[in-house]
């Protein structure tokens, strides 16, 4: 296997741009989804449950949930894109096969795809942030700082999802990752309640899950609380993203350059 570090070049942007052009074509459906879904979710769960819960960890439940959803959606959108969409381009559409006949290489394709996945997370996270702001959940301008954190979260989760894609023989393979990795993180990592309320061993365990760090980084920025250990959280996300991307590039090289 070729373990050389990924060396993306300017062609990476061509791959990103290809996806952005396809996305622009479907912008209507996309905007509806990105704004409509969180709107319904936040109104329904945030107000519905919030009425009974009141505050959680010193934050109105509506704001608590909205900030958690932003982190979760960054994970979800990037993972879905890196699995289903990337697999579609790699296997049935043979798009990469065509690209590899040009000066653009596997490293450019994979890094371009990961940046694209993170960009989609950023769009989705921003949409929820806008909805949350309109509904009064956002404290102040510091919420803008959540945007780079959302992008980083998207990149961090796109990388392991793309590793799954590089190993997948078909779409059904992704169900394992969805059920065994993404769903537990969705439930356990502090989207709905503070991780501090978990049993002690679980609290230690969830510290090893990147979504915990994404929530811990994004939530205080959105609701206007001081961020505790910002560099630790950002560091964990960057670490996962970097090594995930490296392994993804190595595996896609192995799959496409035979």
């Amino acid at each position, binding site marked *: 296997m070729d373990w050389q570090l990924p060396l993306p070049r*300017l*062609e990476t942007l*061509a*791959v990103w*741009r*290809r996806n952005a*052009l*396809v996305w622009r*074509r479907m912008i209507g459906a996309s905007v509806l989804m990105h704004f409509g879904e969180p709107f319904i979710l936040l109104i329904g769960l945030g107000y519905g449950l919030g009425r009974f819960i009141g505050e959680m960890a010193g934050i109105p439940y509506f704001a608590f949930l909205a900030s958690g959803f932003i982190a979760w959606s960054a994970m979800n959108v990037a993972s879905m894109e890196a699995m289903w969409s990337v697999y579609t381009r790699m296997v049935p*559409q*043979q*798009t990469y*096969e*065509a*690209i*590899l*006949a*040009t*000066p*653009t290489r596997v490293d450019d394709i994979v890094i371009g795809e990961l940046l694209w996945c993170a960009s989609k997370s950023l769009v989705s996270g921003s949409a929820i942030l806008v909805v949350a702001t309109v509904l009064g959940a956002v404290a102040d301008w510091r919420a803008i700082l959540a945007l780079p954190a959302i992008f980083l979260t998207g990149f961090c989760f796109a990388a392991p999802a793309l590793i799954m894609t590089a190993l997948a023989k078909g779409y059904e393979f992704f169900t394992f990752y969805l059920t065994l990795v993404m769903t537990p993180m969705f439930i356990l990592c502090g989207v709905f309640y503070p991780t501090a309320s978990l049993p002690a061993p679980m609290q230690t365990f969830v510290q090893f899950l990147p979504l915990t760090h994404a929530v811990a980084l994004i939530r205080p920025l959105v609701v206007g609380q001081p961020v505790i250990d910002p560099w630790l959280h950002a560091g964990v996300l960057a670490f996962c993203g970097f090594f995930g991307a490296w392994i993804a590039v190595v595996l896609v090289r192995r799959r496409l*350059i*035979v």
Partner: protein
Amino acid sequence: MCRGLRKVYGDLEAVSGLDLDVPRGNCFGLLGPNGAGKTTTLRMVLGQSPRTSGVLSIFGESIDSNLREIRQRTGIVPQADNLDPDFTVAENLRIYGLYFRITSSVLEHRIPKLLKLVELDHRATDRISTLSGGMKRRLILARALINDPDLLVFDEPTTGLDPQARHMIWSLIHRLKRNGKTILITTHYMEEAERLCDEIVIIDHGKLLAQGAPGEMVRIHCQKEVLEIRGELPDRLFDNLGYKRNRFEQAGDTYYLYSDDTTELLETAAVLPELACLHRQSGLEDVFLRLTGRELRH
């Protein structure tokens, strides 16, 4: 140019020691039955597949150190239709130009010309899914020209096409050759090789079997004429013909008798009135079958 090109997949040696020289401005054909190692060879030549061993250079540059420059000057028409289904005809060319980092102004100038060349200018804004197989092939050819390459590589360019589309592709390839492009083509259609190629090599099991100009190959490896006999041969005649070693072949229920002597063939045909006989000139296909086919020599 390649020397000692080898590719091993596990226990299988797909390409075992090929030496090829493709002169600039020539059309060079790589022929062989399915599974002979044609596509594997092409993929290695294009740097899309690592070599097990061997030396490769294109435009006099090593493929290992100058792959990017070589790619900039190469156009590839793959076997599979891998057009981008998310885009229209013209957009496919534009997006492909991005991968070469060609500027928009150059692309805006080049795309209408390419679409005209492959006669798809009236379909520029149509989706890929609305195109016929032949149109897709033509668009892939236009796509391979987006970087104005010096070397064009075709992997079975006309497989699965109707005669109209096939002739159109052939005339385009002729035109490219006239414009001084170097062309490397794989095919298992002999007619295609005879029409297009200045020089061909026949490979099987990853080894080179024969090399030369198509006409010359027929002269060297085959008698001038052939008699095809279809049906059950009487035993007596079978034994009689079987003695003509190297000139007599059987494939299924068809027998081939090769000869430089027309009278001999016509006389043989005359004694077989109840069998379907076809007397014709030998061609590249005969050479191909003799070199790669299963031959029964008695």
